[in-house]
């Protein structure tokens, strides 16, 4: 069983399923095939997580294919294993909750390719594979995106270009140093700052572009507003920019990383506050969801760069919270669009709670968890984020609680405008369907369990934050 190519199967199964969806015999079973493929991926990722948590990092090599040499292509450690399982689970949520109109072969295939490419990027032990995963991820989204919007294309392409240049400079140093595998992350760690300042500059630029940090936030807004919402949510919740920071930039370029930590942290905090500020005057729910997601996601990056254990663990927990809660919110909002049409404005009260009480409750819990209400994992994550960020950055750090408070107001405003304030539509509108109910209940259960037994969730992420802290200690940063 140890020789079973678990990574490859987890990555290739959704890819294969995406191809199968175009065959005529599977056209009427799109959701079933998609769920089966993502379910297999999820179970395999869960197994990877179990093995990593039990006995440390695991890897997969493709010896026979590449000239007999033993090349490690995929690996998982405490940092990557949990996000892999989480992302596969969130894809299942999205596929289950997606309305029928989003379940055509093209849209479903795009979801599966996003899953496959994200897992590829997460598990990549080799920078070229990471680049491939990152690129395919963006292409899959753009393939189903609104063709009239150039902004996401331009900014995602710029992000890819920056990543390619940064990786190129790192690989060049690997080749110069005579490494057997010049693109291997493990091998590059033996060098002192591979790629140097130029690689760092381009990689940071790739992170900022992909995470939608000011001024690149516009692609996220455009994607949520004009693109396919569920795919935009998946793309955003992959948090590949954050992952690049934790997997490549901090371990390979620790000194550069910490020399410029204040810049990254400050610009992320400013993004969190700015997006929360402009959301005050936003009346379009899709754009409002984009701004809230951006604001909360930016706080993760700010906290990763706080250079202390509380901040890093808080960021890793917040990653789980933002991904789960926003997936729930986006799925619910898309379900509403499927029922009452896409031209929704929150200028007026819609009173949907009378027709959709269960969706209203799911929306409220996901929203409140996102902004850190007690009894949910969000409360723990916010507590650690605040401690970490204010400790390292007490002046600009104050923007974090301000942004969170504003986001809570936005969530309540969106909830009240969608679900409260009037008697609602006079026609019968279905509440949560069984398939929606099951996956949304799972999201809510995850968020609440995290709030009731947080130690288990903290333990899941503590090894990853310890690893980051060890790197910080090695360059003389006081992690306490």
């Amino acid at each position, binding site marked *: 069983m140890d020789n079973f190519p678990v990574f490859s199967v987890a990555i290739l199964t959704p890819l294969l399923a995406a191809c199968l969806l175009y065959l005529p015999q599977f056209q009427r079973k799109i959701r079933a095939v998609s769920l089966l493929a993502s379910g297999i991926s999820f179970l395999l990722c869960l197994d990877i997580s179990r093995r990593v948590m039990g006995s440390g990092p695991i890897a997969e090599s493709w010896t026979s294919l590449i000239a007999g040499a033993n090349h490690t292509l995929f690996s998982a450690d405490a940092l990557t294993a949990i996000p892999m399982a989480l992302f596969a689970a969130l894809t299942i949520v999205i596929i289950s909750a997606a309305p029928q109109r989003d379940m055509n072969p093209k849209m479903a295939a795009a979801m599966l390719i996003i899953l496959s490419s994200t897992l590829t990027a997460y598990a990549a032990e080799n920078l070229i594979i990471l680049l491939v995963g990152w690129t395919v991820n963006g292409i899959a989204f753009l393939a189903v995106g609104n063709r009239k919007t150039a902004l996401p294309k331009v900014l995602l392409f710029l992000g890819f270009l920056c990543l390619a240049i940064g990786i190129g400079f790192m690989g060049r140093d690997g080749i110069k140093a005579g490494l057997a595998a010049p693109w291997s992350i493990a091998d590059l760690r033996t060098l002192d700052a591979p790629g140097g300042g130029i690689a760092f500059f381009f990689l940071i630029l790739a992170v900022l572009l992909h995470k939608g940090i000011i001024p690149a936030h516009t692609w996220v807004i455009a994607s949520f507003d004009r693109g396919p919402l569920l795919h935009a949510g998946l793309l955003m919740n992959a948090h590949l920019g954050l992952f690049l920071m934790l997997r490549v930039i901090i371990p390979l370029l620790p000194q550069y990383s910490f020399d410029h930590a204040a810049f990254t942290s400050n610009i992320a905090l400013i993004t969190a506050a700015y997006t929360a500020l*402009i959301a005050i005057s936003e009346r379009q729910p899709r754009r409002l969801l984009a701004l809230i997601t951006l604001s909360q996601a930016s706080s993760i990056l700010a906290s990763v760069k706080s250079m202390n254990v509380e901040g890093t663990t808080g960021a890793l927990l917040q990653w789980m919270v933002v991904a789960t809660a926003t997936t729930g919110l986006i799925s619910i909002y898309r379900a509403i669009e499927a029922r009452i049409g896409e031209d929704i404005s929150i200028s007026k009260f819609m009173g949907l709670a009378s027709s959709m009480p269960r969706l209203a409750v799911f929306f409220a819990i996901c929203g409140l968890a996102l902004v850190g209400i007690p009894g949910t994992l969000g*409360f*723990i994550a916010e507590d650690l984020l605040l401690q970490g960020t204010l400790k390292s950055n007490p002046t600009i750090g104050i923007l974090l609680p301000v942004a969170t408070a504003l986001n809570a107001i936005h969530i309540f405003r969106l909830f*009240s405008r969608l679900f409260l304030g009037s008697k609602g539509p006079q026609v019968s509108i279905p509440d949560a369907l069984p398939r929606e109910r099951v996956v949304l209940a799972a999201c809510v259960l995850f968020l609440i369990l995290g709030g009731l037994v947080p130690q288990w969730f903290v333990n899941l992420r*503590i090894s990853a934050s310890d690893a980051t802290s060890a790197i910080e200690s090695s360059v003389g940063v006081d992690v306490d």
Partner: protein
Amino acid sequence: MENLVLIILLTPGVIFLGLSFLWLCGWTIRERPVASLTAGAYAFTFMVSVTLAVRMFLSDVKSIELSFGNWFTLHEYTFPLVIAVDELSLPLMILTIVLVGIVGVFSSRYLHREKGFQRFFLLLHLFAFGSLLIFSAGSLEMLVGGWELVGITSVLLIAFFHQRPDPVRCAMRVFVTYRGCDIGLLVAVFVLHHSIGTAVFSGLFSGNWPDQTFMGSGGVALTGGLLLLAAASGKSAQFPFSSWLPRAMEGPTPSSAIFYGAISVHAGAYLLLRFQPLIAASDIASIAVITVGLITALSATVIGRACTDIKTSLSYAVMTQVGLIFIEIGAGWKMLALIHIISHATLRTLQFLRAPSILRDFYETWNAVGGEMAPTGVHYEKIFPISVQNWLYRFALERGHQDALLDLYLIGPVSRLSAWLNRHEYHLTPSRMQSFTPAQVPPIMMEERTPDAAGRRIDG
């Protein structure tokens, strides 16, 4: 005694979880079992709390601190689960149990056949759990947990009649105020944690309440005191955050009684009373607490005189008394403040619960005395010149100009800045819905101004 404390704290929480589970499973429980369960649970909890008080008194125990380890640990950073019951918290816990029980019994008739009957009781139990958590918390982190639960239940109950827009708008206003002021509490946790190393009360103060001393420096006392004052002012509707309280009267009368007459509105005063040793360690913080209380008491009593409906009048009367309690805390009169909180909460609960029957009560009294009722109150404002009286009347009618000032100097500029920035965002990324532009009058302001502009009464 430890078990008794746990029974008191957990009973409402367990009932909430049980009822929620049944509701989520689609089982609607009939009114009578819900009412009986509520009455029985709070009668039982009351007996347990009295037993606890008697046993503490007989064994001369000043305080009980229960530690359940850490909720979570992250190397040196811990989130301690500490429950503390002392001479400050126990009376307020008993008060909460008694008043929630009374309101529960009252509501079972008042909300009879109301569509949201079960929802009201769910939120009432969650509120009771949150309040007991605030009063029994042994650390500021746990207090924050209860504080947030009370805040969210408060907002959800204001929007109880959710099919009308006004209650939802008012709930929004209250939520904005709560979340804004809660920043003070969250930052205070950080300040105490990183300056003293803990936010557990036994680590912050030496001795037993009311003879405690703060163990930190004057600088921490000043910063922490001002942050806590901001949080307490928001929760207790003190200047400059008092304008939400009349709006909160949109909720059903029983919730107004328990939240804004009794427990929730005094949570801020309790916070300051709990941290009084910290406030006393800084003269500036003490003066700030007194000043806020004084301004609120004076303005609220003037405004209350011009109110024409009972619930609004009561809300300003509440503000006045809570303002006086703030003054007492700032001056260091701790025991007086505690007695004031308990007596005030009890009286206001009665007044709020009788508010829907005020006309009936008035005519009963009027008939009983044969129509010869003496005028009530003394109009001290008559000692002022007529121009000052006119100014005061205008001041009262405009509710102390607080909304106008907040709109003018805070909400207005922020909303306009937001709309201006968002218009540029729309230029960069036009909406797929061509008719969409960012709000010209930003939504938060619209929500607040619409009722006033239409001349409608928004407060009860």
